[in-house]
Every structure is written in C-alpha cells, then in structure tokens.
C-alpha cells in the first residue's frame, strides 16, 4: 500500500467482493429455486444428471468462445465447425479400419486438429488483413457447413464405436463422464486465464491491444492463439456430441454459436474484449441449460418456452448489470 494520499477505507468491501464474483449466480439461484418449487422432478438426481449432460456441449463451446471474446473477437462458425469435425472424425472412426482402441484417439486428434485449424484460419485472416472476426467467422460458418455436407453427401454417420458411445453414457463418481470432461476443461481454462502469463496477456490484449504491443508482445499471435483454442474446444465438443448421441450428421449444430456466445455474455464478459471469466461462462451455460430443462419439465408449450427463454435471458443480464452497479456502490 502506498498511502501518499491517505485512502479512506470504506466498508462493504467484502459484500462487493462476493456479489461481484458471484456474477450471474444470483439469477441462476433464483431460477433454480423457482423450478424446484414449480417444476416437478426438477430436483431429482436423475434430472440433475440430465442437466449436467445437456449443458456439457454448450459449456465446452462457451469455454472456447470465452478465449475468443476476451481478445475482442467473436466466432460465429462454431455451429458449422462442430458438424465438420464430427463428420470427419466420425468417418475416421467408422471407416479407418483401425481397432477401436486406436480409432477413437485418432478421431479425437483429427477432430481437435480440424477445429484448431479452422480457428487458425479465422484468427489468421482476422489478424493478417485486419478485418472483423464477425464477418470472417460468418464466412467460415458457410464454408464449414458446406464442407461437412460435401464430405458425407448429407448422410448421417452412425454405428460409431461402442467404446465411444459407452463413454457418452458413463458416469464418474456419480457424475456423467462427459460433464466431468467439461469441468476439467473449465478448470484448465480458469487456470490458464487467471494464473499464467498467457492469460494475463489475453486480458491485457482485449483491453488495450496497442499498449500490449508497445510493451513488446506479439498481440496478433495472442489473438490467433485464442481463436485456435476456441476451435480446439469445438473439436472436443464434436467428440462429446458423438459420444452422447451416437450419430454425426452434417446438419448438426445449427445455432450453437449463439448459445455459446449467450453463455459467455450472460456470464459477464464484454464483447469489446478484456472482461469476462470462465466461471462466469460456466454459470451462463448453467443458466441456459437449467432454463431449458426446467421449462421442458414444466410442460410449457413450445411457443411459450421460446418466449420465456428470451425474457429470462434479458432479465438475467439486466439483473446482473443492476447487481454489478450495486456492488460497486457498496464497495
């Protein structure tokens, strides 16, 4: 502490801390409480496992998206790229002629590589020619979708290795194994973002790229790396999708990008970059997953469910904004 000006320490620091960290957690808690009261079976262990399984893919995509958004980018292509990864990896598994024990790791590798490669293209084009990632990844959305369709000729890939699909339904310490994978990814991402030099540079670059560049860092590299990480996460999500549903089709994943972005933004990230956290993203994905699951259980009609989903998204961010300002005032 460098008290040249004696700072008047104000109370309520702790309260602000908790409220600030909790982020969207308050809205999530309210939602859970509501469903516990009104949605039958919501609190059953079966349903909790369902929710975990259901949020897995979006969580993984959203974790990757967090990296992209933190450096001020956006990736609209994830919904198409997950399809591309899935059909190529799925074909690799079913047609490679390798034994399952080899075919699955091989397919995982391929999936992650394809995801990372599309991420690299997105990032590289964005950085090399200084064009908005919004439009580059919009282009990639079309390219990857077309490529996925071209690759399989629209056919759905099935008879995936049983080892993989067993993993999709396996549990680990009572939790769905796929969910455990997602949590591991969240943990790694949290560690990278909050504890490493790379993570620090990601935040700093998203905040003021020029300042970071003038401090001797290659910001383009950092940004491209974030796109690559985002793409690799899509590759992982593609594998999880296949494990979970046992099929891969070139039309899968439509609209996933908006869900992933929504999770990140609901989690408190700024689309301008530099602000956000992977914990917030996880909470955002939970909120969306709980909402969809709870409304399904309540038997709300499809149209009303659509409306309520929209309304809850809006109310959640408004509440969060309110809370954030409140916590600033308290501190």
């Amino acid at each position, binding site marked *: 502490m460098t008290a040249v000006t004696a700072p008047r320490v104000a109370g309520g620091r702790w309260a602000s801390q908790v409220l600030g960290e909790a982020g969207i957690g308050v809205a999530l808690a309210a939602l859970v409480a509501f469903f516990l009261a009104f949605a039958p079976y919501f609190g059953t262990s079966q349903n909790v496992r*369902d929710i975990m399984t*259901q949020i897995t893919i979006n969580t993984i995509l959203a974790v990757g998206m967090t990296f992209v958004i933190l450096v001020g980018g956006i990736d609209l292509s994830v919904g198409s790229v997950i399809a591309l990864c899935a059909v190529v990896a799925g074909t690799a598994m079913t047609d490679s002629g390798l034994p399952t024990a080899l075919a699955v790791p091989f397919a995982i590798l391929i999936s992650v590589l394809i995801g990372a490669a599309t991420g690299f293209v997105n990032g590289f084009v964005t950085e090399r020619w200084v064009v908005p990632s919004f439009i580059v990844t919009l282009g990639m959305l079309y390219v990857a979708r077309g490529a996925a369709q071209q690759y399989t000729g629209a056919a759905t890939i099935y008879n995936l290795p049983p080892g993989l699909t067993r993993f999709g*339904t396996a549990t680990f310490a009572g939790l769905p194994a796929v969910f455990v994978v997602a949590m591991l990814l969240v943990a790694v991402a949290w560690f990278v973002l909050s504890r490493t030099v790379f993570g620090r540079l990601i935040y700093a670059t998203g905040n003021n790229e020029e300042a970071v560049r003038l401090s001797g860092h290659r910001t383009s590299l950092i940004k491209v790396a974030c796109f690559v990480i985002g793409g690799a996460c899509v590759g992982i999500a593609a594998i999880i999708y296949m494990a979970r*549903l*046992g099929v891969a089709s070139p039309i899968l994943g439509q609209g996933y990008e908006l869900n992933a972005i929504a999770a990140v933004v609901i989690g408190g990230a700024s689309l301008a970059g530099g602000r956000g956290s992977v914990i917030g993203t996880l909470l955002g994905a939970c909120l969306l997953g709980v909402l969809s699951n709870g409304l399904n259980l309540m038997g709300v009609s499809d149209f009303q469910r659509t409306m309520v989903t929209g309304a809850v998204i809006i109310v959640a961010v408004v509440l969060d904004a309110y809370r954030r300002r409140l916590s600033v005032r308290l501190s």
Partner: protein
Amino acid sequence: GQESTDDPAPGQAGGKPTVCLVMKSLANEYFQQMQDGAVKHVQERNDLTLESTGTQNETDVDGQVALVESCITKLARAIVIAPADSKALVQVVAKAVKADIKVVNIDVKLDDGALQQAGVDVPFVGPDNRDGARQSGKVLADLLGRGGKVVILEGNPGADNATQRKNGFNDAVAEGGLTLLDSKTAHWETDEANQVFASMLTAHPDIQGVLASNDSMALGAIKVIQERRANVKVASFDNIPAVKEHVQSGVMVATLDQYGSKQAADGIDYAMKMIAGETVTGWQKTEIKLITKDNIGS
C-alpha cells in the same frame, strides 16, 4: 448432380427439354436420396436435361422462391418442386404457371386454398404422410395394447408434413386406445429430441412408447431409452440407414419408408407427360412402406 445448359436455346438443351428440380435442404439425407434417385432416373430416360437445386436449410422459404425465379428466368420447360412451405411457394409457382412452365408438386402438398386463391392448379405427386404416420403408430399401438402410455415428438411447428404426421399419430392413438401423455416439438433434431424426451421420461417415468415424426428425433429418444434402460418402444418415420440397427434390436418397432428416391423420379415423369401435352391434376399418391423388424433385412 446437375447438367448445365451449354446450349442457349431456351429451355432446350441439345433438343431436350430442361426440367428444374427444386428441393428443400439437400443437407437432409432424405432429400439427398430423392435427388440421387432423380438423377439416376433421368439418366435412364435420357430425354431431358435436369437442373436440380436445393435451399440452404429447410425453412429457407425465400431462398427457394429465388431458386424458382431462376428456373423461370432460365426458361425451363417444367419445374418439379418440393416446397419448403405449402403456402409461401404458391405465389411464385403461380408465376411459373403463368409463364407457361409446367409445375409438378412433390413431397409436401401445396395448400389447396392458397392455390385456389392464386388461380392455379398444380398436380401433387407424393406420399400420404398422415396415413404413413398412422400405420407406423398402429404398430406401436398394437404392441402396447389399449391404455398404453405414449408421447409424440413433433416436427417443426407449422411445417406441413410435421402437422400431417402428428395427425396420423393422433389417429393411431385414438384407434388403438392409447393414452397420450405429452406431445412436443423437437424441431426434427437429434440433440433437441434427446433433451426433450429426457425431460418427458423424467416427468412421466411410465412412458411406454414414443411416436417420433422423423428418424433423427427417434435416434435422440433412443439414446435416452438406452441410457436409462427403460422399456420404451419407438415408432418413427423416414427409414434412414442409421435406424436399421434399432429396428433390428427391437427398440424401434416401426418406421416408414416413403421412397423418396422414387418420388422425384415420378414427379419428373409427370412433368414430361405435361410437357408432351397431357393434363395431369390432383394427387398422384406415391408408394409408402411400413418397415418393421420382419422386413428390414439384416
């Protein structure tokens, strides 16, 4: 799968009439089969040039309108269309008819009222979705017996074939005396069906049967059934290759093949007849076939 017109003679390439086949999203396996069948058939006939296109996705109505407009601009002699929407395509179809282009409607029937209002009459070549769904549902009803508890997974709300299949399932429910516990859309999608059905099964652990409006959704539901080792049977629609193992294993008791590959080919045949001067009207029903464990082969 398209032969391009090198010869600028309007609508006639090498003396052969040009026929446009306008599909919904070819990313859907079913329409892909339909197109493949049409291409093969045209090769066999060898008396026309086929130009086939499809939209980017199933709800891309104005994309399909633009496709039809391009066919009119290209002065095709006939258009065979699987409309993305039974009403929204009527206006542009009427425009084609007025441009003296023969139009044959396949797959989903254009809305009669809308056709009437537009003042055109277009023959329909296609399956009876409602009857097909009824047949598929009946297998399940027979298996479960009266009082069997079932749910329906619907297609896109408002989509014509979705409505008809739902109606057909409802017919089967009524005829078989089943108890319908829930009926919800999963928008034709595997992932969504998986989530929706998981919740249905949580809320109604006593579900005995699922009536899925297409195989993709059935696949999502079957995953839940397998995961929870529930004794639930599925009746479905489409007969895509991916469901074969499930029919064999007995989880899926029935699905319905509407011979998509034949539908477009039939449509093309009718279009050629109309080009030759014949008048074709009304509904030319195409073959549908109930697929069960007994006839799926191995």
